[in-house]
């Protein structure tokens, strides 16, 4: 009897879990749709912007130089920005990020860190390195103005020569089923050696000195924003899949427990019938 009661309780608990995970899955799905659209829409824009910025980087040796352009100094420390979600329950996403972070840290001794998202803060703190700033990621689609404080801190470190390069670790949104952590170099803007087509601009209006700061600032903002969007879409996709699996598992458990419960119930009934029936056999014998 006690066994049946506890089984019943476990069934109810598993049912409740499946309801919760189902709700979380629904929320993630609805958030994902918007995030995915935004992420995919912003990609061609940023790619073009990056291409223009990179094609200008070979101008850096002439008098029209800008601090964003040039080559990274190997000796100087790196400002390493890690973007993670604020909340857990999103599959292996955070574990993969942490693994990438530790691998990077063991190869590069001198780093300054900046974290965006609560979930990675602990991992970064355990590295016992300087942390320049920690931001929250939020649980909604990041608005554009979140990039400004981030860019200010990057500027503060990079333009004052405290760091020689800026890198970002974020999760790339490959598809709903696949997200990959990736390290991208943001500053300085380097000219890709494999592309032979060098800057072909003959004319700058009004002039390169005026254009360059505006363009490069915009490039930096957009790049960071794109990483935020990609991370957000990855988080939602990852959570959706994780919660779907959790719901399925909970249903499976409910099914197993139900079978066990029914078996127990039948056994109990059989026993009771036997109890009622057996004395009468004795009488008639």
């Amino acid at each position, binding site marked *: 009897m006690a066994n049946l009661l506890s089984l019943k309780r476990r069934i109810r608990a598993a049912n409740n879990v499946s309801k919760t995970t189902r709700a979380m899955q629904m929320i993630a799905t609805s958030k994902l749709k918007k995030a995915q659209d*935004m992420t995919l*829409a*912003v990609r*061609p*824009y940023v790619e*073009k*912007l990056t291409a*223009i910025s990179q094609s*200008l980087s070979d101008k850096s040796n002439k008098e029209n130089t800008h601090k964003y352009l040039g080559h990274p100094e190997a000796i100087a420390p790196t400002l390493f920005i890690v973007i993670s979600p604020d909340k857990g329950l999103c599959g292996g996403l955070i574990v993969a990020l942490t693994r990438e972070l530790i691998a990077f840290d063991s190869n590069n001794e001198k780093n300054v860190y900046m974290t965006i998202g609560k979930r990675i803060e602990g991992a970064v703190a355990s590295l016992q390195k300087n942390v320049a700033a920690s931001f929250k990621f939020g649980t909604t689609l990041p608005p554009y*103005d979140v990039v400004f404080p981030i860019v200010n801190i990057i500027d503060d470190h990079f333009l004052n020569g405290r760091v020689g390069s800026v890198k970002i670790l974020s999760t790339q949104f490959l598809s709903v089923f696949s997200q990959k952590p990736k390290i991208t170099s943001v500053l300085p803007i380097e000219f890709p050696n494999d592309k032979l087509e060098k800057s*072909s*601009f*003959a*004319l*700058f*209006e*009004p002039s390169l000195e*005026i*254009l360059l700061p*505006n*363009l490069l600032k*915009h490039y930096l903002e*957009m790049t960071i*924003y794109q990483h935020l969007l990609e991370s957000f879409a990855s988080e939602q996709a990852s959570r959706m899949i994780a919660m779907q699996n959790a719901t399925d598992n909970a249903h499976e458990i409910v099914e197993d427990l139900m079978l066990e419960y029914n078996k127990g119930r039948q056994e109990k009934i059989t026993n009771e019938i036997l109890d009622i029936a057996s004395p009468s056999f004795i009488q008639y014998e």
Partner: protein
Amino acid sequence: MNLTFEILTPLTTVFKDEVDEIVVPTVNGEITILPNHINLLTQVFPGELIVKKGSNIHSLAVTGGFMEVSKNRVSILADYAIKTQDIEIAKVEEAKKRAEKIMQEKTSEKDFKIAQGELLKAIIELKVAGKRRRRS
């Protein structure tokens, strides 16, 4: 020899086609890009952008950005752009009023800047839409 022209914004690719002629408002005034234009990088000013293809004339409203001309490929990276025929005047009027109201109230610097951007967008859209209506 045609021009390949595209306008990209962070939200979408607004326009992408082979065209004959583009008139763009830039910081130095309005300029016209014809095929075989010298390679150019410039900043786009808020205003009306006119694209000519054969006898068709398309009009767009842009609120600033960058333009790259390179080997008969013209790309504009705009903060915001919309085809003039897609502008809904009633909606824009409303957005303009809303932005003005926010700017009049004492709000934070951040809200003020956002409202300012919205207002600029609305004013440009109205201006371009008004021009287009008179002409046609």
